[in-house]
Structure formats: C-alpha cells, structure tokens
C-alpha cells in the first residue's frame, strides 16, 4: 500500500486515489485534428519504466493533481495541484 501526497490533504493511502492518466497528454481541440493525432491523444501512452509523471485524483477531496514517481521502485518524488509548482513528497 503506497502513500501518495495529495497537495491538499497530505500523505494518504493509495486506495484513496484513482489514476487519471499520464501527465502532459494535452487535448487537441477542433475538427481539423488528424486521425493520427487524435488516436495518439486517446490511446498512445509511453508507459515508462522508471521516472514518470502522472495525473491522479484524490477521491476523498476530489482534487486532481500531478504526481512524479518511479514506476520501478515506487518512490514518490512530489506532487502538484494542477497549475502549481511541485512540492516534495
């Protein structure tokens, strides 16, 4: 059971969180977006081994945030509320 740092509530157990996807997967707007670009947005993921930045939501407070962690050793290096600077884990 991992501990994740919610930027609003502090460290909480992972069962209080849901994964929200890889960070930086920006949505392309408009009808002119190519099928490839749209498919990339919908389906293509890096699934990195090692350091990764992800979006999570803390279900108990409802806030989405970005978290940096390592997918191999599960070390969490920090989290930020959307649009804020990273804070330490």
């Amino acid at each position, binding site marked *: *059971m*991992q*501990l994740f740092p919610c930027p609003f509530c502090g460290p909480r157990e*992972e069962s209080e969180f*849901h994964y*929200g996807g890889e960070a930086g997967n920006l*949505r*392309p*707007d*408009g*009808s002119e*977006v190519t*099928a490839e670009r*749209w498919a990339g*947005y*919908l389906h293509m993921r890096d699934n990195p081994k090692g350091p990764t930045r992800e*979006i999570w*939501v803390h279900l108990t407070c*409802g*806030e*989405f945030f970005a978290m940096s962690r390592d997918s191999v*050793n*599960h070390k969490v290096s920090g989290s930020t509320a*959307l*649009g804020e600077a990273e804070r330490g884990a």
Partner: protein
Amino acid sequence: MSASRLTTGGSDIDRGRPLSFTFDGSRVEGFAGDTIASALLASGQAVVGRSFKYHRPRGIWGSGVEEPNALVDVESAAGRVPNARATTVQATDGIRVTSVNASPTAENDRNAVLDRFARFLPAAFYYKTFMWPDWHLFEPRIRAMAGLGIVDSDWKPRQVSDQVNHHCDVLVVGAGPAGLAAAASAAAAGHSVVLADDGAHPGGSLRHRVGEVDGVEGRAWVEATVARLKGAGQLMLSETAAFGLYDHNLVALNQRHADGRPDTLWRVRPRRIVLATGAIERPVPFANNDLPGILSADAALSYLRRHGVLVGREIVVATNNDSAYEPASALAAAGASVTVVDCRRAGDAQAKGGIRVLAGRTITAARGRNAVQGVLLDDGTTLGVDCVLVSGGWTPTVHLFSQAKGKLAWSDQLAAFIPGELIDGIGVAGAVAGTVSLSEALASGAAAPGDFGSSSAAPRGTGAEATLGVVSLWPNPKAKGRVWIDYQSDVTAKDVELAARENFVSVEHLKRYTTLGMATDQGKTSNLNGLALLADITGRGIAEVGTTTYRPPFTPVPFASLAGSRRASMHAPVRRLPLEANHRAAGAVFQEYGGWLRPAYYGGGEAGASIEDEARRARQSVALFDGSTLGKIEVVGPRAAEFVDFIYYNTMSTLKPGHCRYGFMLSENGVVFDDGVLVRLDEHRFIVSCSSSHVAAVHARLEEWRQDRFGREAVYIHNATAQYATLTVSGPNARQVVEALDLGAALDDASLPHMAIAAGRFAGDEVRIARVSFTGDRSYEISIRADRAEALWARMRQEGRAFDAVLLGLESLMILRAEKGYIVIGKDTDGTTMPHDLGVAGPRTKRAGEFVGKRSLFTEAGNSADRNQLVGLAVREGEAPLATGAHGVEKRDGRLRSIGFVTSSYQSPTLGRPVALALIERGAARHGETIDVQHLGVVRQATIVAPCAFDPEGRRLHA
C-alpha cells in the same frame, strides 16, 4: 520415540495448573504454558499427522512457525481452526485437536498403504496420468485422499475481527535479543516503538539457550528489558506474526488472542522497520529423514528448557555445525544417552562429558515404521535410537526483507542467503542478518534503528559466545533411498532430480512442478536444501540458482482477519433510500440496482403479476415513484453555460432559465457515456440529472474537465444527489394529484409546460417541480430535502387514493420506458454506441463548438454505414417476448453472423404484446424488415420497427 515429561524444569509451564484436551479422541494431559505440540510430546505421541501425498506418518519437527508436519484442526468454544500449527497454539483445557489428512487417527491411517506405491507416484504423477480424458473426472477422489485440514462449512463469526491502523516511529519484528536491543535503542532515543513477536513470550533464543547480557542471565535481561519498554508506554504485541511487508513501509501483522477472540489484523506504518526475524534450523538429508522422532536439535532444546520435555532417551544428534552441541549437552545432562554424528572432520572441542562425538561421520539412513528406531552411518555401523536430532545449519528468515524487494547475498561462511544491500527505511539485526554470537546479535540490534536509535552503548554478551563453524551438508543426488526435502509437500530428492531431468531447472519451475516449498509452511525448512540439490544436479552455484520469490503471507492468516468487518452486508454496502422504511411498510420487495437498494415491485405477491399490474395501472390513472437516486449535480459559476456546452453532446447554453433539456454525455472516444436531463435554474446555475448508477462517475468526469480545462474559478460543482429526495407523480391524472398537494405553484400547461420547472413549497420547505417524463405520460418530479420527504410521500399517497394511484417499482418502470423506446445507458447501448446510432444525429452534423468526444464521431468507425443502431423489434402476434441478449443473425457467404442483439424485452400489459429494443446493424434504415433472432439455438423471426411502441406522437406527455 519415548519422549516424556521430566519431573522438574520447564520455564514456560505452570505445573500448578494442569489441563487436558483430546487428540484424535484420546486424552492428553498438559500444563498451562504448554503448546499443543509440547503437550503431545510430553504424552509420548510420536505420530501427529499424515503426510500430504503418501500418508507417511509424521511427528513434530520444530517448535515454532516453521513446523511442517504437526498441522492440526483445533475445535474450541471459539469455533474450529483448520491447519493450525501445533507448535504455535497454546494448549487450553477442553479443546478438541484432530490430526489432518488422517483417518481415523494419525496413528492408524487407512490410506497409509499409499506409501507402498510411492515409487509409482513421483512428482507430477497426477498431471501426467490423469490428463486423459479429463483431469476433472479424477480430481474429486484425488483431492479427498490428499489435502490438509477440514474447513467448518457452517462457520459463522461470533465476533468481527478487529483491524487496527497504527503509526509509530519504529516497528521491530521479532523480540529475540537483537529485536529487544533494537527496541530498547529506539525507545531510549525517545521514539515510539512497536515490538511484535509471533511467540507467546518475548526472548527468542534467550528463552532456551544459555546467554548472559551485561552480566545478567539472559532470561532475566529479557524480562527487565520488556518491563522497561512497557513502563515507557511502548507497545508490545505477542503471538503477533508480521506476515506482509508492503510498499512505503506498511507492515501487516496478525495477532492471535488466547481468550478465544478472533484474530486482530494490524496495519502498522512505521517510519523505520527493524527486522529481527531470526533463523530457522534446517533438516539433515538422509534416507527416511521424515520418520517421527526425528526433529530439530534446537526444537528439542526448547522443549527441554521451556516445557520440561525430554524428547528421547537414546539420542543421536546429526549436525554440520556447532549449534547442536548445546542441545546435545543439555539432553545428556537431563538423563539421555547422546551420540553426536558430526560430519566435520575436526569433530568439536566443545564435546564434554556425557556425550559421545563421532567426527567425520554422517547418517545415511534411518529405520523404523511409525517412529525412528535406528540409524545407519556412512561407515556401515548402526545405532539403536529412539530419537534423532538434526541440525543442518541455519536459514535466516529473510522473507519480509525479500518482500520489501531486498536483494539477498549468498554467504559461504553461513551456508545461507542473508540480506544483501540494505533498503531505505529498513534495518536488519540478529540471526537474519547473519550474526552468530549473542554479542553480535545485540550490537546489530542496537544499531538497526539507524537514525532512530540511541547513541548509548549497546548491551553486551558477557558469557560464553556461540560459534557456528557450519560446513555444507546438502542432499546428495546419488543418495540411496528416499531422502525427504520437503516434509509438508512430500517432495524427495528423487523428485527434484526428476524435475531437473525433465528440464525444470528454474527454481520457480521446480517449485511448481514438484510443489517443493508450497503449502502452509511455504518451505521454511525445505527451500534451501531443495535449491542446493538443484544447484548440484545442474552444476551451478546455489547463488546462481537463487530463491523463489517470497510473497506474503509469511504465515497463514485467517480470512476472517483479513476481512474484518467487510463481510456480509458490509462487504459492498448498498446505498439506501431515505424512504426505505415507508416502501417496506408498503410491501416493497427490494433489489440492488447500480449500488442502490430500491423497490423492485410492491405488494409481495407473485413478481411477474405484480409488475404487470403496476405497469398497466400506471397508464390508466396515476402512479407514484421514488426517483431519489437520480443524479442531481449542480454546476454553478460564471462559465457554467460554456462548461455544460463542452460536457454535453447537445447545445445546452441556449436553454432558457426554468427549462430542462434531454441530452447525452459522450466519452472522448465518442461513445455515449450517460444521458439525462439538464435543468437550468438561472443564467449561471444548472443541475445535471444523470443516471442513478452513474452519479459518481459523472461527477468525477465533470470535476476532471473543470479542473483540467476550465479552472477552479470558472465553475463550481456540487453533487447534491443525496440531499434531495425526488418523488414522481406520473400518469393521465398526475396533474390532479399534484394540484391536491397544494404546492403553491401554477401547474397549468402555460405556466409549467413539459420540460419546464417550477418552484413550490410543501409544509414550509422549498420544492422543485420538474415536468420531465421517463414513462411517456405526463409526469411531475418533485424534489424536496431528503429529511422532509416522508411527509410529502405520505401526502402524495393520500391524495392519490382518489385516483387509484399505484406505487411503481423499478421493474414496472422499465416496462413503461421500454414501451416508449426510452433507453437505459449501458443496457440499450454498449461500448461502441455513438449518439447518431440512437437517432440523435443533429449536433454531430450541426454543432460548431468543441465538446467532449466530438472528433471521435468523425473517425472511420464513426462514419461507417454499418453501425449498430437502436431499433424496436416486433414479434408475430401471440408470440412470447424475445430473450434479452438474443442475437440478430444473417447468413453471409454461407456463414451465420451476428447483426446485433436484443437489449431490452418485455411483455407490455398495456399493448397486450411484447416490446423489444435492439441494436441492429444499419437498423435505422431497415424498419419493416424481418430478421432472424437466435437464442440458445432457437431461431425466431422479428420485424424491425421504430423504438417507440406506445404513443409515438407523444400526446400523453401533454394529456
């Protein structure tokens, strides 16, 4: 074997408090402080169980959690516990203990004959032999012959297991000398400490081995240290096994209670963990080394000093290390005749009066039937014995360290794996870390808390210090006879050799092929001998062969402990309506729908007839329905209109305040995610009314878009679903009933047309009246504070009486909506259904602005002409309803293929015929076509029609 109780000695037992229990029906005497195992030994019980596969007689081998043989079912006032280790369960007066896998008793087991066929039953015999025609034909009988304890199928918890979440600075696992030193060091530094030990008493090896700490006799030092820790308010947990070590320093422990309470599960999250888990003695490989009367030398010493039990009179001790000499001397001093067979050339300088040492010798075989009677040495001599003690070296208990992903290192000096590179937040101390002497153990313990330890001097061993001097004594692949590697799983050296011959040379494959290291003991005594043998056979080093993966649990944990209160109705709690009691009083039969417990139908009569009656009467006059579960998510803020435009497939910003609009929400892949009515209360305030079972998901989605795209200041979202009850009046006479409620709102169609809302009051409380309909009849959804709903419901029922109002359960509502072709998302749609498949193509072609899922509607799949589209299906006159899930089929190129499926199907009491909805390929353009519909091999015909079968013009909405 002639084990017996001595007249004196036994530090754990209280001879003033005798007790008795039964084992396989016979009476066993013991004392308070005995384990079941020590009492059985004291009573001379050699055979305590039968082996898993061959039904070999087996006796007690160890004295703790490592015990592979002495598994017993224990019945007490608290219930029946299967597969308990007799070595760890305290004996209590009056319990009934039975051996496992033996019938009628362990001593006289009728399946013992199986062992004579052992040579025909090697590893994987069952898999190979019973493959044809089908393993499942043979499985029940084979399972009945093998297996362990018996689960009480009538078991019910008398009490829920407690689960405790706990935080502390330092958790020390193991209360032996190293663990105590660690706990004392952390406590002295001012930190909060939890010290857990799986035994009944702290002290570890100091409870039965001689030692002296800081000039004090070992046991006295243990008592003093424990007293000091307790006095400082530190938490000591005995009979508590740390069985799992998880991410970020979470440790799970299972605590047993002597008073019959169910076990307690502890989840402890310390800042630092100290593993002082000790080491487990290994068996020595020789033929028939599984006979009763052959046991761990250390266990024999423990039984002698802690329980006053002498395990035999004529004893041979087989060893490859120094640690067996203390047991040998102690047993000799207690009156046994002891011969040490030491495989080491040098013999041993510690050999003192009373014991004979045969240096450079090994045992090649033991003989005896239900107990060991003699041993054959490698020089051909035989010795008559009634007990053989073995010490094949020590295996550090690295399980928790390995669970934490700690890497192991092979130590030639210790002939064992020990923790290699250390991990952040975890210290190791004592025998698990590879220490031998008491001084080393204490010093490593004091240092193990790291930054959480005190700088004051570590306790010192001041007496004689233990040495090990272990040499390799691994199983010999060429040895004659049956050399047992894994007692519990009945694996011999030959089975390992067979596995290697068949190329199962990875330890993980070896484990699965032979079951070595499986079952309840997980190979605590057997793993290292097994993989050393595999290494020898395959010409590799032991370190190269490696170990299997260590996984939780370290020791078996009752499911009741893991479940805690999460059982029965608490396992997945349902959500309940504020008016549940009123519905029950009205005879409602409840079912769970999407997590909510809701009335399925009323009246308690036959379900089908009740549902049909409700559906028919609802069309005749008026129906009352509790729709409180409908989502009510408020969207408020300066950019709320822009927000709902983005969220919905339909344009919503053009909606006038005081009005409602039906719409779809899509996923980004263009699939319909939810449908419902959006209410606009004023310029900047909307209410999203979503499907009952979808509220949490819709809310999360709204929050995600709000936070990710619009920002906190743009909109605010509040899920008010549970704060309001929504009570619906529907039917031709609905307006008369609502008027009688006297809500103070104008209800004429000019003031409150279909898809509009009005504000009213009931008994002083604000109510919101919405004219939206899921039945196809004129309907009023009245929302009121949930805590005031009861009076409104009562009043509605009272006023409804004059109109023969009927209460609608969810089942009849499903008929009404299906008659109208109204869909339920997820039932009448699937994971490919786009809005234009449901006949709502306008926004797709016309909407200019961006909305969720838009681009996906124009992909190749979205543009395809062959999409499954929503249709109605009509059957021939007089036929029964189609089966929900039945497939439309057609032949193409000589092959039958599915062209879609029936999603909803009911007998309509109002229409007097079945109605059905279906998703059918190109269905929208095929109205009037008759297709084949297949279900369970039966093919029927159905005609594609419009989804709406009742009042297609929608006149009744306004009637």
